[in-house]
């Protein structure tokens, strides 16, 4: 049983791993606060939302989800508070009752909680069910706060311990994550972990979740100029217009083909060299591209380097800055901070990425580390082994 948050970026890799588990004959369900559209769920799986228990929390859930739109306009430390104090902890609290019932109904052999969906691991701990954690982003986003910012470290500890205590968990250990197996969907080379703890297993990107979105392939095939894919992911709705406005200004008259994954309705007219569509079959489009522009959403980052492409990353908030630093360390892309985005710089940076071979070579090296990490097969092998020992 996967326990997931209402953020598609975190759900996405679990859908891919879940598809592989289902193909191997396992029973797989997902549970969370908001249902995801049926077309995303692999055949044979199901998504359970405990509506009955969530009913009393509806207003709070709506408020927390709406609050996420503030992320881009907040500073780093404010985002830290928003994430842990105003989102992860309250969601854990809200989910516990319904999740507990769903777990009793389904009787999972293993609970797999997403790294920001603490309720999964907490519930597993309370019921004595073996637990695995999935981590879609490079871990250690906050760095070593115990050393570098003791008061922030203390704040984190206090919040998590408080939550555990409230749920009747008296241990001093943190049980919001699994200490037995944590599957991370990147490579340890890219994440900058030379010597990870033994339960941290870096399996690289996974694939295979259903995505049947149609696309104007003919128009893309007809394009003769270098192709650049642009995505802001599924969140960050409020800043789309501003962001894509800058892109239009930068690239409308350049010999480039821009594939923009966004609602075309935000502008009345798009330049002729822009192909714009809201939901795209991203993993099929990116192999046909020459470069990618994104804010650092991890699924797009993985798709990009799985195809050995250079990236222009425009970090906005959350863990984007951490990801941007990893990309610059690896040499496979260039960071331009969203809040300091200059149109001229956008233009010169994209041409630098397209013309200077070194970025592509570095991106191909990351692809090698991703492939070597094992992907779906490795994730399934780890889970099967874990379930055998755990049961």
């Amino acid at each position, binding site marked *: 049983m996967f326990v997931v948050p209402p953020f598609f970026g975190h759900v996405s890799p679990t859908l891919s791993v879940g598809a592989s588990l289902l193909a191997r004959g396992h029973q797989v369900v997902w549970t969370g606060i908001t249902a995801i559209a049926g077309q995303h769920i692999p055949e044979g799986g199901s998504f359970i939302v405990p509506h009955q228990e969530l009913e009393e929390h509806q207003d709070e859930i709506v408020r927390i989800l709406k609050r996420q739109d503030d992320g881009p306009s907040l*500073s*780093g*430390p*404010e985002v*830290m*508070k928003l994430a842990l104090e105003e989102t992860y902890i309250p969601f854990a609290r809200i989910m516990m009752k319904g999740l507990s019932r769903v777990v009793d109904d389904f009787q999972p052999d293993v609970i797999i909680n997403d790294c920001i969906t603490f309720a999964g691991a907490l519930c597993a701990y309370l019921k004595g069910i073996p637990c695995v954690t999935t981590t879609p982003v490079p871990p250690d986003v906050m760095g070593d706060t115990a050393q*570098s*910012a*003791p*008061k*922030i470290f*203390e*704040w984190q500890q206090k919040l998590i311990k408080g939550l555990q205590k409230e749920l009747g968990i008296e241990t001093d250990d943190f049980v919001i994550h699994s200490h037995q197996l944590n599957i991370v969907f990147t490579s340890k080379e890219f994440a900058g972990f030379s010597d990870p703890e033994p339960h941290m297993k870096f399996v690289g990107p996974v694939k295979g979740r259903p995505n049947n979105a149609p696309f104007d392939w003919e128009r893309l095939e007809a394009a003769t100029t270098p192709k650049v894919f642009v995505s802001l992911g599924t969140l960050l709705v409020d800043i789309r217009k501003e962001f894509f406005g800058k892109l239009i200004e930068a690239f409308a008259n350049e010999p480039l083909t821009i594939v923009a994954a966004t609602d075309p309705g935000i502008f009345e007219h798009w330049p002729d060299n822009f192909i714009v569509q809201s939901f795209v079959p991203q993993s099929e489009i990116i192999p046909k591209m020459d470069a990618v522009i994104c804010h650092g959403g991890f699924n797009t980052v993985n798709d990009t380097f799985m195809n050995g492409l250079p990236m222009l990353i425009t970090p906005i908030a959350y863990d984007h*800055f951490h990801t941007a630093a990893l990309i610059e360390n690896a040499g496979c892309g260039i960071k331009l*901070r969203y*809040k*300091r985005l*200059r149109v001229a710089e956008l233009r010169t940076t994209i041409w630098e990425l397209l013309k200077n071979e070194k970025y592509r070579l570095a991106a191909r090296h990351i692809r090698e580390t991703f492939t070597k990490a094992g992907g779906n097969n490795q994730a399934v092998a780890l889970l099967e082994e874990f379930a055998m020992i755990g049961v």
Partner: protein
Amino acid sequence: MDQLIQETKLSNEEIFTVLNQFITEVIGEEFVEEMDITPASSFTKDLEMDSIEIVAFSEKVKAHFGENIDFTGWLSNMDLDEIIQLKLENIINYIRECQ
């Protein structure tokens, strides 16, 4: 004697002018133009500085005001709310104390 010391110390306004210049260098003139930087400006909220910019800024402060001004060390002892609230005038006071 007192007077001598007074003269070697920079006034708040003088420090502010220097810091204003550093901020412009770090985040770029065109972005500063849109901001109204005052001693009451907050680092994270008004100036929207990220950690890399704050590090670059603190290097400049150190180079100008002296090695004993451990700006990043001072920051690392703050909690989140203190960092969120941090204003230019807090730094001006800190520099004056260190002088």
